[in-house]
Each structure stands twice: as C-alpha cells, then as structure tokens.
C-alpha cells in the first residue's frame, strides 16, 4: 500500500511540475492544482497510513489516525481553492489586457 501511495504522489508531482513549466496560463493553473493534490496527500501520509481508524473519539475504538496532518490538510485544501480561483481569474484578466495568455506577459500573437 505504501508503494501505491508513493506512486500516486510521485506521478501527481511529475505531472504538476511538467504542466507548471508550460508557457500558457491555463496549463500552469492545471499544474498548480495537481501539485496541490500531491502536497495535500504528502502532508496527510506523514501521519503514516492507517485504515479504518478515523480520528473520531468513540468508546470502542482502540487506535486513531493522526488528526494533526488532517487538520493541516483540511485548511490547505480550502486555501488552495482560494489560490486556484485567484490565479485563474488573474489569468483571465491578463488575457483580456494583453490579448494572449502567455505566462511571461509578452505581447506575442
């Protein structure tokens, strides 16, 4: 299972990095979103993998997943939404003002 999650995070990171190196705004936004998935997963699994042990206190449960990375990731998800929204609107605005969606803001056709 650890191998699978390493694979997922690795592939997400690689895809994110590749797309964020593109020259147009939309793929870069896609890339940043993929990178934020990778980072969120990375943070979560720092609490190690456990199955069927949600951090909700019950009388019967004997062990719980680490709640701290989960709390971190929860806000990170919402914040990355805010960031994605900001960046995508920024790219719209840039497209409107420059007539193209180059990330370098060049006035290329």
């Amino acid at each position, binding site marked *: *299972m*650890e191998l*699978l*999650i*390493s694979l*997922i995070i*690795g*592939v*997400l*990171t*690689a*895809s994110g*990095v*590749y*797309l*964020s*190196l*593109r*020259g*147009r705004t*939309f*793929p870069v*936004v*896609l890339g940043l*979103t*993929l990178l934020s*998935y*990778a980072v*969120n997963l*990375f943070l*979560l*699994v720092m*609490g*190690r*993998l*456990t*199955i069927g042990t949600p*951090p*909700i*206190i019950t009388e019967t449960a004997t062990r*719980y997943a*680490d*709640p*701290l990375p*989960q*709390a971190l990731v*929860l*806000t990170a*998800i*919402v914040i990355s*939404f*805010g960031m994605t929204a*900001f960046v*995508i*609107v920024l790219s*719209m*605005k840039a497209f*409107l003002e420059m007539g193209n969606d180059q*990330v*370098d803001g060049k006035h290329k056709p």
Partner: protein
Amino acid sequence: MNLSLIALTPFAGAAFVAAISRLGRLHAAWGSGLVAAIALGIVYPHIATVFSGDVIVQSVSWIPLLGMDFAFRLDGLGLLFVLLILCIGLLIILYARYYLSERDDMGRFYAYLLMFMGSMLGIATSENIIQLLIFWELTSLSSFLLISYWQTRHESRMGARMALAVTGGGGLALLGGFLLLGEIVGSYNLSDTLASGDLIRSHELYLPMLILVLLGAFTKSAQFPFHFWLPNAMAAPTPVSAYLHSATMVKAGVFLLARLFPALSGTSAWFWLVCFTGLVTLVVAAYIAMFKHDLKGLLAYSTISHLGLITLLFGIGTPMAALAGVFHIINHAIFKASLFMAAGIIHHETGTRDMRILRGLRKYMPHTALLAMVAAASMAGVPLFNGFLSKEMFFAETLFIANQPWGWLLPAAATLAGIFAVAYSLRFIHNVFFSGEPVDLPKQPHEPPRWMKVPVEILVALCLLVGMLPAWTVEPILAISAASVLQGPVPEHDLAIWHGFNTAFFMSLTALIGGVLIYMARRPLFAMQEKLEHLFDFRSLYEFLLEKLFALSNAITRLLDTHSLQRMVFVFMLFIIALAASGMTATDNDLTGNRQTLPVDGVSMLVTLVIVIAAIATVVLHRQRLVALIMLGTVGLGVSLVFVKFSAPDLALTQLSVEVVTIVLMLLALYFLPQQSPNESGKWLRSRDAVIAATAGGGVALLVWAVLTRPYDTIAEYFLENSLPGGGGTNVVNVILVDFRGYDTLGEITVLALAGLGIYAMLEHLKLAGSSHDGEGRAWDTDMHPTIMASFARLLLPLALLVSMYILLRGHNLPGGGFIAGLITAVALVMQYLANGVVWTQERLTFNMQAVIGLGLLIATVTGLASWVFGYPFLTSTFSHIHWPVIGEFELASAMSFDLGVYLVVVGATLLILVFLGLVHHQSHQMKPRKRIR
C-alpha cells in the same frame, strides 16, 4: 502623572490638529499651541522632583523575553531637552502661523510638526534604549515629512530624501550599536547602562559598539563628513529649519553623546574619534559658512560648526568640558532659533534670501535689525551675550592639553574657528542691514506683522538675560542637567562674564579682531573661494555613491529576474531538485525502513490506476483544455477516495465539495480563455521539462516511500486525549481547527476572504466577450437552462441546505464542520445559478456576499474576543450541555459560533468568486461574440 504622556500627547495631538484644521485655517495653529501647552502641563508637576536631584523612572513590561520595556525617565538632561523642545516649539508654532501663506495647508504642517515634537520628546525621556531608537527613527521620518512639506518643489523632495537617507542610515548603525551595548551590559535600560561604564569600556566589543553609536550620533548631528544633508534640508519652510536645527533634530545627536557620556567616554578611542570629528566639523563648517550667499545657507553651516563645537567639548571628556557642552546646547538653541526666525522674516518681507541682493534693510525694518544683531552677536561670542559665556568656557577647555607636544594645535584651531564665526556673523548683519541701499528687491521691504516678531523678541531677551545674569537664570537647570550628564558631582564653575586677563579671554579677543579683519578682506577671499568650491562638494560624492548603489541593485535584479516566469520556474525547480538530491545522497541510511507495510487490495490498485492514468492524461491532453480539465476532475475525485481509504473522512468531504466548486470555476474561466493551447515548446524544451518533471516526481516518490516505511513520534496523543474533556467534541480534526489551533483557522479564513475580495476587485467592471464556438468550431447550445435541470435544482435546494446545516452542526463530533458545510451550501447555491441562470437567481438571492464574508470574520473574531471578557486568552473555548425539551440533551460549545464564522466566510467567498464570474459570463452573452482566438 504618567511620563509616557509627555511624548505621546503630541502624537495624539497631531491627529486632533489634522482633524480640526478642516474647520478653519487657523484652528490648527491654536490646536497645536494647546497640545504643546498640555504637554508642558504634564511635565510641570515633575519639575520640582527633578530639581531636587531625583530621577523619575516609570516602566511597563512590554516584551520581557527580549528585555524590552516601555520605559520612560526624567532626569536633569531629559528635563532640559523637554523644556527646550516644548518652549521653543511653542514659539515656532506661533511664528509659523504668520509665516505660512494662504496656499499652505496648515493642518498638514502642524500635524507633522507635532509628530516630530513627540518623537523628540520620546528621545529625551526614553529609559529603554531600544525605545529611544524607535523615537530616533520617528524623528527621521517626521523630519522627512517636514522638510518635504512643499512637495511640489524638486529641492524639497531631494533635500528630504537626502536627510532621510543619511540620518536613517545612521539610525541603522545606531541600532547595531545599541544591540551590542545591550549585549555588553545585559540590559537595555539606561539606568543599568549608565551604571556600567567600567564594564563597557573594558569589554572587547567596546570599539565596534562605540563606532556604531557614534555613526548614529554624527549623522544626526550633521558632523563632518555627513554634514551635507543639513544645508540641503534648508528647502524646508523656515519655521521647520528654525526648529530642527536649533533645539531639536540635530541636537538629538549631541543629546546622545551627552546621554551616554558616563558610559562611553574616558577612553582614548572616544577622545580621538569624537574630538577629531568635532574639531574638523567646527573649523571646516565655519569656513564654508563665510562664503554662503544664502541667508539660510550661512545659518546652516554655522549650525554645523556649532554642533562640531559641542561634539568637541564632549570629546575632550573632562567634567568641565561636558558642562560647557550642555551650556552651549542651551545657548545655541536660543540664538540659532531666533536667527532662523529673523532670516525667515527677511525672506518673508523682501522675497529673497540672497545676500548679494539684500542690503540696507535697517531703514525699513529697524526692529528686526536690532533683534538680529543681538542674536548674531551672541552667535559670534561677543561679551554680554549668552554665546560668549559658553564659548569662553570652550576656549578654556581646549587648553587642557596645551603642554603636550602639538597640544597648541587644538586651541589654535578653536581660535581660528572663532575668527570665522565672527566673520560670518558680521557678514550676516552688515551685509543685510547696512552696506548701502537695497535695489531690485522682489518686494518692498517693511516690518512683519507684530506677533511674528514676538517669538524672536522672547528668544533675544533670553540671549541677553543669560548673557548678563547667568547665575540667576540658567545656573539651576545647567547644574542639574550637567549632573545627569556626568552621573556625579558637578565641577566648581563660575558663570561670570569677567574672569580676568587669562588665555581664554585673549583667544576671544583674537577671534573678535581677526573676524573683523577677515570680513574687511572679504573680496579677495571670495574670489579665492570660487576656485576652491569643488573641494567641499560632498553632496556630489553622496549622489555618486547613490547612483552606484542604484546601479548595483539594478544589476542584481537583472541577474535574478529574467522577466520570464517560465524560466524562473525552471530555475526554481532545478534548485529544489539539487537541494533535495544533495540531502538524499548525504546519508548512508537505507531507503527502506523497518516499519511494517500494509497489504495491497484490489480496489486500491484500481483507484491508483485511475489516478495515475488521469494525471498522465491531463498532461498529455493539456492542449485540449476542456478534456484536460475533465481529467483533472477525475484526479481530484480519486484523491478524495484516497482520503476515505486512509481514515480521513473530513478531508474526503472537503476535497469532494472543493473539487466540484473548482471545476465549475475553471469551466467558467475557460469560456473566456482560448480553448486550446498552441504547441509552442520545441522538442528539446519538452524533453528537458519531462526530465525535470520525472526527476521531481521520482524524488518525491522515493521520499514518501522512505518516510512511510519508518516509524515516527507524534504529538497526536495530546489532541486525542484532550479533545473531549478540553474541547467538548469527539471529532478531533474539527476540534483542532476551531479550538486548539483556532488562531490559525482565523488566519486561514481571513486569507480566503481576501482571495474572494481580490477576485471581486479584479472582476468588477470587467467586460469580456466570450467565444461563440467551442474548440472544435461548433456553436454553443442556445438552450441555456434546460427545464428539467432547472426544476430539479429548485427542488433540491432545501434538501441541500438541510444537509449542509446538519453537517455544520454535527461537525464538532462527527465528520463535518464549517469548512465542509460552507462548501456544500455554496455548491447548492451555485447549482441554482447554473440551472436557472444568474439573473433569475440574483433576483431571489439578494444577499451581499461581501457582507456575508465580513459577518463571518466578525463572528469568528468576536467569539475569540469574548473569552477576554471572562479573563481567558484570545479564542479560549468553552462548552456545556443543556437539556432542551423534546430534542433532549444538546451540547453547546463556543467553538460552534466560531465554526459558524468559518462557514459564513467560506460560503461568502466561494459565492462571491463564482457569482461574479457568472455575471461576467452572463454579460458576455449580451455582447456581440468575438471571433475565436486560438
């Protein structure tokens, strides 16, 4: 009464004065006078205590960890400066009321002046040296505002910038000096510093500390070679010059020398550094002053020269010299303020300050002439005027090393400076008020308004009183301030006018006669000076250095910023990879640890496969933007399944709802963007990026593997144990968010709110035309709101809202909470927009989303503040169980109202973003569609 009020009153007064100046032009002047008088009233009850020899120290702990106290002190030296700052300040306020013209904004002027006054008072009364430094920097900032008061003039802006650069740079050095000093003494309190003189002087850090502190003092006091800012600061209105360069600003530097005198003086390093700087400044500035044609220019260099004299006295370091230094601080403040004011009157009434044009004004303004003559005589050191007394003490003190080899140089240089001083004082008087008839003056000269002369008269009267009756006027304050400078007994001194035919008297006599002779021979001297002018041009050196500095910073910027995001991201990734690689290769540990791994099951394999394929498809198909977006959505859903698998139900819910909102948002945005990306990168570039991406991904995968196969220590136990008894909730993740780490969450929702508002700001008034066709060239469907979808969405709304309420309320104990509930509500509402159209929905949903965001932040913050009412730290939560009829036992936690705040911010921000984008979208349909852009 509280000492801190002395310094803080003018700051409060500045706002007050700025406010009342709207009611009438002169209100600001009267208001400022009132503020200064109140500050004097606050000092008044302390005066008797200080005169009895006591030191008042009041201190409040501020940042105890750093040794920072909010501490004030009033002793003899502090009191002397407080009185000088406030009394001369009052006169300046009166004078400026007549000086400023109809066009000048009085409120702004007096507000700046009061801020400056408060900063100076802060320097004079600070007990903590770091706090002293804060006020020190505040004087730099407020004097910048004062010097640049006439903002439209180039020389005002330039002069102000130069003053700020030089004194601000000095302030930086002083900060370093004070930190070292605090390190040596072990305390930032002045009382401790003054008592540890021997410790400081024998410490190995003494010399660097001394140099840094002196840099601060010398830049502020315009000592050579930092003197050039002061003449350029003459672009300020004359009341400002009169204030800054007599009793305040430049005196802050010598105040510092006096303040730290017992702690720092008495070493040969102190003697040589301070004496030499003072001596050079004294002589060179006095020499230059003789050749200035501008009245204020002459006074500016004379100020520099007198500051050199005071510095030199503190450098000599004997108790008697220190006493003479304090005495000259008082005398210089009095005569220089009156001279600047007189120069201002002359400028005001004739329209010029150029001494090549001014002459013979005695006939037109005899009263002003008389006042200026007395003040100038005091500046020249003529007997019976106050300047003479301290100057003769100075001459006497320069003799103390006369028996050493080359020891005669010091008195000789002092006498030479005295000669120059007499010459420029004589020029000021003779040139302006005598020497023929005025011709071609811009204005017909006449006496100024009556009350404009009153401040000058008061100061000139003081010149005479102190000069003739020193023992009755100045002696008491001089004695207590000298005592606090020396931190010990004041030496025997005799403030008499006549001390017999001693060496000092002959030096004074030589200066007077020599000065007159030089003035008579001025014509050939002026001609000679014209040729030497460039030798003293430190301003162009400063400008040269500044230019080089700008060039350097530009070069560094150009080196780092290539104006290409693509390239910078590339460099960034490369650097990160290199950093990680060096870290990974530096250790010999095995990649795989000894932790037991979990077995793999079929479903997990399948989900992994889906995520991996979708992610790769996003990359491969990224030029087909819509398809890539759908693939991205698939990845996001896959990620939420991973959260479910690994015991994170809250995260799965959040990820699911965020995914929906994100995809809707990106779809909306994509409508306005090109539908496809062109293939721009060449093969080489794409392979390069692929290598980078593969390396990064591989590295991260290895890292995750290495971490996951190793055991770890966690602080989770604390949260798990305290969640129920401490936070009153069983959902530990939610309790962490709203209780344990509530402060972080407050910050996060603030960020979200700002992102929402920022997007609103970008979208407002934005008019975009969308394309009429999709990427394949097919026209969009014209049926925008299919009936079945619209009806179902309306039916679903109450249900969706009910679910979100349920999720919100149960969040403390079961998966849910403000973030998730907020997103669900947002999704439910967004569905209405999608199905029924923006216009239809907006008619029915009339909330102002900015207000919702504001309300949410307010609720969250007030919940935090409420705990203060009960005497607990910010955001301490509480809970209790109440029994409701019918419903039964119900838990009520204060954290729930915090979560409500979170909920409102999330709903508000999400809808603000989507609805505005939707509105832009809607408007674009009303406009004529543009041609497709690829």
